[in-house]
């Protein structure tokens, strides 16, 4: 499997705080990789660096063969990187449809955009009903769906999800994870950050475990799920 994304020695900091301390990992084409770890481990920070929202202090991000470090966030979108941020970040005062169109902002193939819109509505029938509603008035789960659909509208090759289950009712969590599986099945590469470690390990093929800004463990998800250390630290057994 060839690598879509490869990160080596990535370091990110906030002022004096060293949040990510030199990590290496990669994601293969069409792979679903999970990144888990406790609060403040640096997962969100890593995703932000990949999306270009924060500049790395060191290391290299290689995406599809080219170095990404200096590419501004908005250009990374057209290169096929999409992030569903922590807390969803839907545009509350835009309608659902407008939010989706924002997802396709960097594309200009009108016909295919319309096609994709239709696909999204098929994937998330809930959004069809709410097409003209302001996104801010959606329930938490609906917003999460919208955020995901919006990211998909950019036709990403790499989809990054930051805690998609946070604050969602159990039924909703199931739905979201089903969707993640579906999308992955269509061949998209996915990087999933999740506090619900069990679920994350269940859906992913490989996983990395972050601790205090570094990668503490990595391996095939099924193995990690069975490992004692992971059980104790993240699965609360």
């Amino acid at each position, binding site marked *: 499997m060839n690598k879509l994304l490869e990160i080596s020695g990535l370091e990110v*900091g*906030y*002022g*004096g*705080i060293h949040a990510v301390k030199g990590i290496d990992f990669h994601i293969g084409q069409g792979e679903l990789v999970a990144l888990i770890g406790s609060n403040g481990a640096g997962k969100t920070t890593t995703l932000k660096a990949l999306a270009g929202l*924060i500049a790395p202090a060191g290391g290299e991000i290689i995406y599809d063969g080219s170095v990404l470090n200096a590419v501004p966030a908005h250009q990374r979108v057209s290169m096929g990187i999409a992030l569903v941020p922590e807390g969803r970040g839907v545009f509350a005062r835009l309608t659902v449809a407008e939010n989706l169109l924002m997802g396709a902002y960097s594309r200009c193939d009108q016909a295919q955009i319309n096609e994709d819109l239709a696909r999204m509505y098929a994937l998330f029938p809930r959004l069809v009903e709410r097409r003209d509603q302001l996104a801010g008035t959606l329930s938490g789960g609906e917003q999460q769906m919208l955020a995901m659909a919006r990211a998909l509208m950019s036709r990403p090759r790499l989809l990054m999800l930051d805690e998609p289950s946070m604050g969602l009712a159990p039924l909703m969590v199931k739905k979201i994870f089903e969707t993640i599986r579906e999308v992955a099945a269509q061949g998209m590469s996915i990087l999933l950050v999740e506090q619900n470690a069990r679920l994350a390990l269940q859906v992913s093929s490989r996983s990395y475990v972050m601790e205090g800004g570094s990668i503490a463990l990595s391996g095939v998800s099924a193995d990690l799920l069975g490992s004692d250390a992971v059980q104790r630290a993240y699965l609360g057994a």
Partner: protein
Amino acid sequence: MKKYNFSTQHVLNGLLLVSVLLLPFLTDALLGRGWVRIVDFAMLYIMLALGLNIVVGYAGLLDLGYIAFFAVGAYCYALTGSPHLALAFPLLFPDGLHLSFWIVLPLAAVLAGGFGVLLGAPTLRLRGDYLAIVTLGFGEIIRIFMNNLNAPVNFTNGPQGISRIDPISVAGVSLNSTQQVMGITLPSVHLYFYLFLAFTMLVVFVSSRLEKSRIGRAWMAIREDEIAASAMGINTRNLKLLAFAMGAMFGGVSGTLFAGFQGFVSPESFSLMESIMVLCMVVLGGMGHIYGVILGGLLLALLPEVLRHSVVPLQQALFGKTLIDPESLRMLLFGVALIVVMLYRPAGLWPSRVRRRELESDEAAR
């Protein structure tokens, strides 16, 4: 940051105090008496800025009409400490009222505080820029009334202003005259300097005590998150009104001093631009930080005068002649200074601990 041991701290404080006490003499000798007057005005501005700092810096309420309280204080003394009331009520006060400054001062402070509450009450639900525009309106309303209440009854003498206001006297000594104390000659501006210094120190004291109290913490809570503050049991309405009232009182005191010092008040002195200047002092110096605000007040009060004295010589030195109108250049440089300072020190020249931290992490997060 650095920890001085106690004795060094005391020595430093002592040195500071001595140099402040000598300031008028040094200024007079080195720069001329005009500069002592400028410093006097700077202290009035510092009081104003510290008052506004309570409202904007502590409680986070953007007030663009703050100068109104200065006006209330000034007119209080102008009306009661001058022959003016003879015009309005010739039968009642044939020579005007001529109340003592020391009687008017507390009354003016309380009245200004009352106006503060009056302004605060309808604006409690407003936030940010909406509050700004309402306070701006309030400031203008006060000014317009001052400007027009010369008819039907002549309360304020309208745009003509009120002149011949009694000078302030301390222990029976008028500050408007030169005094000899222990062989030292103290001209009027020096005397006012010491009076203003005393009041400035009082205002600083009150500010700092408030800041580090339960009340001050509650204000900061309101500034950070009003809803969370109220959920913690803080009566946001009362505390906001208290902030308005305290700030207004400082303004009132400063205004009363201004009227006595200047001997003349007219509505022109209380324009919107003045409110904006005081706000600039607070923000530029370092919102919420007493020393920062003092620095801001001092700087903005002095800068135009420094520029007044330096643009011509500067141009002469640079080009050998005066190329650009000194006055336009002066205001231009003033504007540039505002921009440059904010660009390089967005949290103010001397920000408080909190602001500095806020900025640091915000900057990191881009």
